[in-house]
């Protein structure tokens, strides 16, 4: 299938559903090594995103024309509704991603560029690098896998799928780490043995992108 603006919208709605469905799990992860609000924060944000998307779609001049428009809407809405660390980080990620998706549909190289832009945005704001037990760990794994599959000639969906799988593994890989950024770093050694909530939510968001792609084009 083509990763077009309909896909982008479907991605966002699928992501919102996934966040709601996993709200309590995310909260529990954050309760273990943070302040127990990550699920609620993201849920609040994505519900606002869906509302905003509905409004825009219902507007007389029609919905967003480009993939980047959808991502920008996500960015600004998350920025103004999530708060906490995740709000600005995801906000910046989607904002940077939107800038490399200024077209009606994107192909494999743009998927890679989108993921890279998101990661760079997060790193620029949060100053975290891989291995610090943050969402960066999931994004970095996704970017690496996406680049590899794209280099091997995979299509957009294949690239996305590789990214989502890698993000999932990247999130799991945060479990043994000792956090050195974000709220979990206050726990020192006690942060080891728990999965980073932001890395887990990153994996959820990328999985939603795959699900949204597959929904239109059942294999």
């Amino acid at each position, binding site marked *: 299938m083509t990763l077009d603006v309909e896909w982008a919208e479907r991605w966002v709605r699928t992501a919102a559903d996934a966040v709601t469905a996993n709200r309590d799990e995310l909260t529990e992860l954050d309760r273990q090594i943070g302040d127990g609000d990550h699920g609620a*924060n993201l849920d609040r944000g994505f519900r606002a995103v869906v509302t905003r998307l509905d409004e825009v779609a219902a507007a007389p001049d029609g919905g967003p024309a480009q993939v980047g428009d959808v991502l920008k809407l996500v960015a600004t809405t998350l920025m103004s509704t999530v*708060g906490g660390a*995740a*709000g600005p980080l995801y906000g910046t990620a989607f904002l940077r991603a939107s800038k490399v998706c200024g077209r009606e549909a994107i192909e494999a190289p743009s998927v890679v560029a989108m993921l890279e832009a998101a990661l760079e945005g997060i790193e620029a704001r949060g100053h975290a690098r891989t291995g610090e037990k943050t969402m960066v760990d999931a994004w970095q794994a996704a970017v690496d896998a996406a680049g590899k599959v794209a280099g091997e000639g995979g299509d957009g969906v294949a690239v996305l799928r590789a990214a989502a799988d890698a993000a999932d593994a990247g999130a799991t890989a945060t479990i043994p780490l000792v956090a050195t950024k974000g709220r979990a770093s206050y726990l020192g050694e006690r942060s080891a043995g728990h999965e980073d909530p932001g890395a887990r939510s990153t994996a959820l968001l990328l999985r939603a992108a795959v699900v949204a792609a597959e929904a239109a084009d059942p294999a």
Partner: protein
Amino acid sequence: MAPEALDGEGYQGEDAPMKKLLDDPANAVDDSLAGFALAHADLVEVHYAPTYVTRAGGAVSGKVGLVSGGGSGHEPLHAGFVGDGMLDAAVPGAVFTSPTPDQIQPAIQASDSGSGVLAIVKNYTGDVLNFETAVELAEAEGVEVATVVVDDDVAVENSLYTAGRRGVAGTVLVEKIAGAAAARGDDLAGVRGVAERVIAGVRSMGVALTPATVPHVGRPGFDLADDEIEIGIGIHGEPGRRRVPMSTATEVTQALLEPVVEDLTLEAGERTLLFVNGMGGTPLSELYVVYGRAHDLLSKRGVEVTRSLVGNYVTSLEMQGASVTVLRLDDELEALWDAPVRTAALQW
């Protein structure tokens, strides 16, 4: 009064309802602010969508504006400190969640009378990032903004391995003293300089006896056995640095005060402000016991306590526990501390 009066809808859900005096937990922050606005109409004005609180009457002409903010659940911080001699605006986020830039930006702009604004930010990744963006936006609108970051919590090592020390109870002292500097007419650089001097000289450490429950989460932020306490907690329901058996006030106070004094490298003969802050659910009488013990311990080291504050000022919902804060004083800081203040939570 018929008993049915209370038989309305109440909370829904599988588990026992949370015991909180709230209607919809998701609206807790705005519902509380609405009551706050009604109770203190002479002092504050509350704005919604986005939510922020300004001083009644708006920015004071010729005065540097002071804005602070952060997650809710720490009341009276920050809205309770809006008023003469302290803050011009406060920005409450969701419970334990830093506010968003679109709330912070208008609060900054509303506090500017042309003399610039000092943003007082507690050192949490979320607060720092959201304020950063808001400050950029406000600057783009022509407001001169300086930012200081409060990081008084010695429970967290200030190292490569952490997000840096957290901002906790010491924030009140920064807001009071910087507020007095602004009120006496210091310019933005001056007010920021005073705030930075306070930040450099203030350290805190806290203990939780029981955890707090975030309304929309519905269960405690961490679990503590009946005979355990958590030393080195923050104010967001995060677990602390270590868990120890429940002990006496003297021992607990010592465990809190010692790292504070050491980090400050306080020496005999120095003057200090001693602040014992309640986390919300501990009786005032116990805070005074802790205060007495801390005072004794400082006296033993020859450190003088010339100013004091005891009460629930930077809380963590209904958490039981307390924190001990020490601020190194000098003549100027003492005078600024003593300067008049008229807010909902602090008045003299």
